[in-house]
């Protein structure tokens, strides 16, 4: 079920079929008086169907890294390639980057984001929430509904399709968010502390779900503070003060 490549080593040079490639990615927030260095020269390669967890103390730059991978944010320096396409290359004065619509397209088709705070549209039913990325992908209505329902089935929530987020539990909301992330069949699912707002039982359910998705061939990056959760992944990247402190891969143990 799981492809052989999932244990590929991070120290390999950029391979042609690499999913994500970071070279010297830096993010500096200019706060006027002081500059906040959220990321300091990250080099990172991610292959398809990896299951990666990112750990690190608060403020170390995990979310910043995730946002840049997810094309929600752009680095202030460095080079980022996604599936061999240049997302952005900033060095000194020369800036080469995708335009806004191209970035939106990547977010829409290639990336599924799962947030700590779910970020569902509150007045909208679970089904409509899951449908949303497909609307922006201009998928036809019938196919859209079909795929949205399918995604809800995948997260075991098909019986809650017509409920609004306020009528769902936190765990259920996060499952809707996961369904929304995977409905477009993205190249990668990014989950920034997906269990941060959930109790341990519900967290475990979510992790079972993510494990399953990984098993189906998805690529997953997961930010967490908990070692127990990080252990689900097969590669753990430790971030400290905006830099990669450790990058450990483990053989499959499931």
């Amino acid at each position, binding site marked *: 079920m799981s492809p052989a490549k999932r244990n590929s080593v991070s120290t390999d040079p950029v391979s042609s079929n690499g999913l994500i490639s970071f070279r010297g990615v830096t993010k500096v927030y200019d706060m006027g008086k002081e500059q906040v260095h959220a990321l300091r020269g990250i080099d990172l390669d991610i292959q398809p169907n990896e299951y990666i967890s990112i750990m690190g103390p608060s403020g170390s730059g995990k979310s910043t890294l995730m946002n840049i991978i997810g094309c929600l*944010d752009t680095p202030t320096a460095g080079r980022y390639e996604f599936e061999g396409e240049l997302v952005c290359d900033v060095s000194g004065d020369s800036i080469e980057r995708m335009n806004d*619509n191209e970035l939106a397209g990547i977010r*829409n088709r290639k990336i599924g984001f799962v947030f700590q705070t779910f*970020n569902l*549209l509150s007045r*909208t039913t679970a089904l409509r929430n899951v449908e949303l*990325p497909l609307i*922006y*992908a201009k998928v036809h209505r019938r196919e859209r509904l079909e795929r949205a329902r399918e995604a809800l089935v995948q997260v075991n929530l098909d019986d809650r399709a017509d409920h609004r987020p306020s009528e769902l539990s936190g765990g259920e909301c996060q499952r809707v968010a996961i369904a929304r992330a995977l409905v477009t069949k993205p190249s990668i699912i990014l989950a920034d502390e997906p269990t941060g707002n959930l109790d341990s039982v519900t967290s475990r359910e979510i992790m079972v779900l993510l494990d399953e998705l990984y098993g189906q061939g998805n690529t997953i990056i997961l930010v967490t503070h908990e070692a127990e959760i990080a252990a689900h992944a097969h590669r753990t990247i430790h971030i400290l003060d905006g830099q990669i402190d450790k990058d450990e891969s483990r053989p499959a143990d499931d």
Partner: protein
Amino acid sequence: MIEILRIAGAALWAHKFRALLTTLGIAIGIFTVGVVMAIIEGLNVSFSEQISSLGSDVMYIDKRDWFMNRDTWLMTRQRRNIGMDAAAYIRERATYISHVSPRIYQRTTLKRGDKSLEHIATIGVAEDMAVISGTDLTNGRFISIADGHHRKPVVVIGDAVREELFEWEDPVGQRISLSGRKFLVIGVLEKQGQMLGRNMDNMVYIPAETLLKMFSRRWRNITIAVKASDPALLADARDEVEGIMRRYRKLRPGEDNDFAINQQSSLQEFYDNATRMLWMVAIGIGSIALIVGGVGVMNIMLVTVTERTREIGIRKSLGARRSTIRWQFLVESMTVSALGVLVGFLAASGVAVFIHKSTPLAARIPPAWGLLGVGVVVVVGLIFGLWPATKAARLDPIDALRYE
């Protein structure tokens, strides 16, 4: 596109009351213009119906122009009266004119038995007036040459007079008293209806000579009504009448006319000027209301954009393009203004129907204005929605997502 409409609808539905309030300005603008429009349209209908009864091929030779300002009125005060002999003079000489009749106005009191009508328009005319005025008789005959010649006390009565004095009786052959003198009713006019707010049936015709004899003031001023033999040659007829009148008045070349030739078109001109004013006032009020309304729309859209910053962030994180977000909010602002147009339109239509039912004015809103309404929606919605929508579209996805 359908999705965008659906999203806009849902967003507005969530704040129904606020949306409705916002639309008020636009609604008032549309309402004002709509009502004025309906009234003008009603005026147009009745005016054109009414002045057509004047006859477009009829000219009225008067001492003065129908419409003039104070200065020309003072200037023309010295003019000589027009007398009966002028009518005969024209009749003898004109070739482009088929009918000529004097027209002398007098108010009289009509009595029959114990019924009495005061201030009845009594018009002294000749036999040609039947053709010139274009009114038919329901009964009896019109005034003849002989009637005028012998200054006979005969009268042709309007429909309202018939109704008041005779009800269901046949008036022809009956006698009525006209300012104390016995008159024989010889004919009854068809019902005319209203003209410029006056009931045209509340009048009688008598021979001009009879009128002059009864209410004799020696050099009484009269109007002469003439009808062109061919409406296509109205301009020629006018030139000819002008020439004849100048000769009659013995004016030297270069001397100004000391009489006036009035036509339906001068009335039309006056009317057009009056309604143009009305239009400008309506458009003025309407545009101010629309601008106020538009600013209201913009304000509410800015509030909406701020309130929904997080939603915008979510949508962007899911791959919504700037243009998609911009459209979403533009459609919303256009929907708000459409609501305003709808409310204003319905209110104006209601008032129009009310006017139509309760007054003689056939007020209505022409359908073409529906299109204008749609235009207003697009323009107001676009202009005043553009800034908020662009603001929403430009939001940085990360900042928007973090927004609390």
